[in-house]
């Protein structure tokens, strides 16, 4: 029989305001196994913890029930207290009477009754608790960063600078991501390439960084500290060890009509290409969808002109497996498709473009060499309409997204300002729902666009854009003036919402990391652990976690790196002792548990057993690898006979809790 101590925390008035803590302590004192019960203002304070330690000694307690806040807040604290008092830390149970009780109830009698019930459940569980000891596992001192945009680059650089090897896996032939496509950056208006490319070069040349470009992660096994990752290096038909990046092949290739994705299809490239001049690694790749040689076997021009002999038409996809201690998701974003927004005539007119396309149109390395010209006729536009929130903040989200994409207000102010600066003869209108510019020097930047550059900011949404000759008729409402507007525009720029890259969802599945309904990765805690995934050893960098601008992305990338460094600096990790184990005498060997185990922690062994009828039988039984098991409990549910159980959360313990609640 346990000797249980119950400690009821007031949490100031957080709990005591709606729960009669004295009554809770008195009532729980009568529960089976309870030999001591007390309440105190702040159980987590030093004085509160000392009180627990003294009670353990004085009353020879074997188990503790702390009625306090969520175990996510202070379970670790009280486990340490228990350990300091000489108890096994897993003899502590938390009854959450704050988040799940005092905070959700307003009436004292109801809150008190519920707190007592929750306390009884915890007491019932502790009665069945047994001491648990965590195992240890080693840490592979290498990190993987998935995605080579500014987030991935910054995370990799920071980890590598701390002395740990890092691999970047980037699906495109070069790192750089979206930032490489941008023209200027707000609010300082320095050129994106000028500040990004040095970092790309740093990453490319860093002795601790390996870049797997044109590669994808196809499988992830293992667990924190010990991930096994399979990386598919897609065939680029160019040998990375030989290509010098001279670019001759990309000039001679006769297939000239390949849409250039770097310029968002606004111009063309060759079938063999280097995405842009500052690409890292600067190695050509052949687009197998367009290469005549690969499709028909007739051409081979690039191989003829390549002085390095780097072209290899027979190259195959290559799969490599690498072990990592930590994985960082930095998969980034894309603008959403404009298919569902045809009221803006995106599909009908070449002169209706997205903001990212506008970036390329104003970029010196873009299709127009930086001159702002209409895609349809190459003429200079004199009236430009910017439409904000296209697909952002859509209620109902039958099309578009419910969230704010966060970056559009600022980049549109930047576009408008730069346009007015370079082409003062241009009229620029911005239609907005709200202008949201919190951030250092952000609001000043927006006001400059309005006040110094004379951009027409109009509160109201554009209802329809109709191509009419070489004009775009923009029908909109001006909500402040309370009137309808009609503008004959030359160019319409849509601030398309951003969404997580499509590769994020399958990656989350591989990582067993959780996502929200918008496919953004979920943080371990939205405020206190914003760069960690709830899955141990998986970290989040950049817009894969939520919309962010560049300064925020870089901050988060550095934060993720520091978490990775903290992990890799450890030689050993303490495991979670709450793992599955199988009662072998009851195991059928049916493989149900193995099939549902997301971590591959269950294998089978043929073992000899002495059976009740005094015969010896070889039986197939499940064996749990405790270092791999994460204690999710899927196996215990799948097991038809109940042979599989979870230490610390045994079915009998859960049933005892339910019984205590239902009594």
């Amino acid at each position, binding site marked *: 029989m346990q000797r249980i101590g119950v400690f009821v925390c007031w949490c100031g008035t957080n709990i005591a305001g709606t729960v009669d803590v004295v009554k809770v302590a008195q009532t729980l004192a009568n529960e089976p196994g309870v030999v001591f019960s007390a309440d105190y203002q702040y159980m987590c304070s030093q004085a509160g913890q000392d009180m627990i330690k003294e009670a353990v000694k004085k009353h020879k307690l074997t188990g503790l029930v702390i009625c306090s806040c969520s175990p996510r807040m202070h379970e670790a604290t009280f486990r340490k207290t228990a350990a300091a008092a000489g108890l096994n830390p897993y003899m502590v149970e938390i009854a959450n009477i704050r988040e799940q009780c005092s905070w959700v109830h307003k009436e004292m009698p109801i809150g008190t009754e519920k707190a007592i019930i929750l306390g009884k459940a915890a007491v019932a569980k502790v009665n069945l608790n047994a001491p648990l000891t965590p195992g240890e596992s080693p840490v592979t001192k290498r990190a993987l960063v998935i995605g080579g945009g500014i987030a991935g680059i910054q995370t990799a650089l920071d980890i590598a600078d701390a002395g740990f090897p890092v691999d970047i896996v980037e699906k495109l032939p070069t790192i750089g991501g979206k930032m490489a496509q941008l023209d200027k950056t707000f609010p300082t208006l320095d050129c994106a390439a000028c500040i990004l490319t040095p970092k790309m070069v740093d990453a490319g040349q860093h002795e601790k960084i390996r870049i797997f470009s044109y590669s994808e992660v196809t499988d992830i096994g293992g667990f924190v500290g010990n991930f096994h990752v399979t990386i598919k290096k897609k065939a680029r038909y160019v040998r990375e060890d030989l290509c010098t990046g001279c670019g001759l092949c990309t000039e001679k290739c006769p297939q000239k009509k390949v849409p250039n994705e770097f310029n968002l299809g606004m111009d063309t490239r060759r079938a063999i290409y280097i995405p842009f001049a500052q690409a890292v690694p600067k190695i050509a790749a052949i687009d197998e969808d367009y290469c005549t040689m690969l499709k028909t076997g007739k051409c081979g021009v690039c191989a003829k002109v390549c002085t390095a002999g780097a072209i290899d038409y027979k190259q195959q996809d290559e799969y490599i497996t690498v072990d990592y201690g930590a994985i960082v998701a930095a998969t980034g974003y894309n603008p959403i498709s404009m298919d569902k927004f045809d009221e803006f005539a995106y599909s009908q007119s070449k002169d209706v473009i997205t903001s990212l396309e506008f970036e390329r149109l104003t970029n010196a390395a873009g299709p127009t060499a930086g001159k702002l010209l209409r895609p349809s006729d190459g003429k200079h536009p004199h009236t430009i309409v910017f439409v904000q929130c296209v697909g952002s903040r859509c209620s109902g989200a039958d099309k578009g997204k419910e969230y704010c994409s966060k970056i559009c207000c600022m980049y549109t102010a930047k576009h408008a300002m730069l346009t007015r600066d370079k082409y003062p003869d241009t009229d620029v209108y911005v239609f907005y729902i709200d202008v949201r510019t919190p951030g250092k020097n952000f609001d000043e930047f927006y006001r400059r666009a309005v006040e110094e550059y004379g951009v027409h900011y109009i509160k109201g949404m554009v209802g329809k854009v109709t191509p009419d000759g070489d004009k775009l008729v923009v029908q909109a409402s001006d909500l402040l003036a309370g009137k309808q507007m009609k503008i004959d525009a030359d160019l319409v720029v849509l601030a398309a919402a951003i969404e997580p890259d499509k590769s994020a969802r399958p990656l989350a599945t591989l990582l067993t990391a959780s996502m929200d309904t918008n496919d953004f990765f979920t943080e371990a805690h939205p405020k206190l652990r914003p760069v960690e995934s709830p899955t141990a050893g998986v970290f989040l960098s950049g817009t894969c976690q939520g919309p962010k601008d560049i300064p925020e992305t870089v901050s988060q990338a550095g934060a993720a790196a520091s978490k990775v460094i903290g992990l890799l600096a450890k030689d050993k990790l303490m495991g979670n002792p709450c793992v599955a184990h199988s009662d072998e005498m009851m195991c*059928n060997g049916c493989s149900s548990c193995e099939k549902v185990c997301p971590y591959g922690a269950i294998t089978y062994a043929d073992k000899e057993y002495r059976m009740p009828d005094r015969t010896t039988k070889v039986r197939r039984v499940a064996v749990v690898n405790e270092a791999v098991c994460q204690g999710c409990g899927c196996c215990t549910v799948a097991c038809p006979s109940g042979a599989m159980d979870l230490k610390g959360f045994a079915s009998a313990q859960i049933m005892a809790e339910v019984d205590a609640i239902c009594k």
Partner: protein
Amino acid sequence: MQTVTKEMLIAKAAELLDNGSVTRVFGWQKGEFDYDVTPALFHSAAEMEKDFVWNDFCGANFSKYLIKDKGEGKVLVFLKPCDTYSFNQLLTEHRFDREKVYAVGIPCDGMADIRLIKEEAGEGVTGVDTEGDELVVHTLYDGDIRLNRGDFLAERCKVCKSKKHVAYDELMGDDGEIADSARFDEVAKLEAMSADERFAFWQNELSRCIRCNACRDVCPACSCEKCVFGNPKSGVENKAASDSFEEKMFHIIRAFHVAGRCTDCGECSRVCPQHIPLHLLNRKFIKDIDTFYGEYQAGAEVGSRAPLVDYTEGDIEPSKAVERGGANA
């Protein structure tokens, strides 16, 4: 009318016993009456000549017996098409050693239901013979009564899901086809009921349960080393129902335990002495699994991953299950 005769089966067994391929035979043994057929283990052709039967009452599915079978050499087992699904399912679950079994597939023309016959023919049925499409029921009081065989087949045979064997070492006679079965019609009727009506239906059926455990003991999916209902640690061991709700829990828990593994062999309902249509619970699960995860037949192939122990990105979200299943899901 069964196309393979009892004599042919005995001859096949004798041949395999003689040449040493097998050392023992799982077969149906005659009881007091023709229709009292018991599963049995035979060790010789002579034993079989004496007691082996193959008639319209050989419903017993031998797949589960292979788990407990021990002995040297191989065992011969006769499998009807529906039995082969259980056979495969147990192989998927690694429950017996395939190498120790010689499976002979035999065609089945459906099994008669003695309850239906007795309801029609009244008391004093001493025997039943099959003549073509007719059953000749011998009775003490009314002489011979001739019945249309098709009307007196077991429910599971009237809606037979497959005449095709999915596993065997040797096949006697011709193999059939997977049938376009109407087996979910009864489930659909239950689904169409209001929640109250359905509750009343099951209350009525399950209140007859005497917890004899026959359904569990015969079920090929209920093959755990130790059943939760026989495990003192589970807290529900061999417990008599204390109120009318508890017997429902036994059957509902059992249906959950076999969900995704039940091949719909129908043995549970055949052996129930209280005539509870237990198979309908399992069929409801099968129908739901088909609806939510795509059609899946447990035991159709060895090693298949049942939807409930598999994950695909297309898996239904819990919140959608109610919508897709309709208002009565």
